């Protein structure tokens, strides 16, 4: 008789970063080791304001299972999070709130704009809607769609993972990054 508890035997492991290994040692760069650790344990902060948020709920639930990417740990305080996921229409009145949330996140931080509204205002070409969140905060990845399917959100998330894994540890101290922040009025 089969055992009542079944174990997952198809566990996938993350690839080991490139490096030199021999008997009893493995050497690689900090960039790669830290990048691999970061990209597989991203803590997302869902900022869901409309239908893209519903698609995100499907993405995070069992069928699409965002947890496979090490991102099952949603947090609703910006101070603990690495990735701000903006999903839905952002009204102009919401702009300062979104900016405040971004400012409260600790470096390093990433932003993904999910859906047409967050990326460009979408169909809401009107006086009350922010025409893309990149008017108030810098964005790393844009996901198209209205709303995007969970597969698209996962694709966007994997692109964020790529960025996180390849980011140089010096990037956040570079002049270019400071210029980017200054262009948004962030010190």
């Amino acid at each position, binding site marked *: 008789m089969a055992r009542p508890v079944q174990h997952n035997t198809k566990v996938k492991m993350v690839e080991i970063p490139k490096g030199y290994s021999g008997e009893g040692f493995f050497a690689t760069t900090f960039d790669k080791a830290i990048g691999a650790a970061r990209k597989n344990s991203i803590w997302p902060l869902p900022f869901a304001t409309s239908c893209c948020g519903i698609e995100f709920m499907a993405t995070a639930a069992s069928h699409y299972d965002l947890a496979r990417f090490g991102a099952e740990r949603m947090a609703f305080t910006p101070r603990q999070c690495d990735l701000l996921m903006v999903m839905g229409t952002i009204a*102009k*009145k919401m*702009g300062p709130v979104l900016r405040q949330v971004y400012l409260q996140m600790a470096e390093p931080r990433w932003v993904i704009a999910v859906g047409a509204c967050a990326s460009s205002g979408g*169909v809401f*070409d*009107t*006086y*009350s809607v922010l025409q893309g969140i990149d008017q108030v905060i810098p964005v790393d990845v844009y996901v198209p769609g209205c709303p995007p399917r969970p597969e698209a959100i996962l694709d966007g998330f994997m692109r964020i993972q790529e960025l996180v894994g390849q980011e140089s540890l010096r990037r956040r101290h570079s002049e270019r990054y400071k210029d980017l922040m200054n262009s948004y009025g962030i010190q």
Partner: protein
Amino acid sequence: MSLTNDYIKQRLVEKFGEELTSFEEPFGILSFTAPAALNLKVMQFLYDDEELQFRFLTDLTAVHYPHQADAELAVVYHLYNFREKVRLRLKIFVPVAAPKVFTATKLFESANWMERETYDFYGVEFVGHPNLKRILNVDEMTYFPMTQGIPAGKTRRVLIRMTRCLDAKY
């Protein structure tokens, strides 16, 4: 005796004579236009009169008619008589260059919110309003979004261009 539109009109004409114009009954609701300076007097009369008793302000908004010189903005009041279940529509017209209207907040508390909203979207200045500032839009907004003639957004620009293309083709 139930309150009929004809009777209301008769009472209004008795009281205000030639001042009130454009009596209509769209969808069975008596509608008429009053001079901007008389809006409070008319509403006070409708409120106080023992038979008319229009003591509820259902709605207050504005309409922009850009082609009506010196009467571009219409301020519309919807009044209601709860006892007789009768509705009434009062319009006043003001120029968009100086859209000054007396506030109805002394008569109806609910006018406070609605007049702020009307100011926010149409720029109508309600003289005597206790707190006339934007209510729904961002404070930094420099225009009144529901007045026509503000620059078209990208969708409307595309639509206009598409319409022109179609016109040229057919």
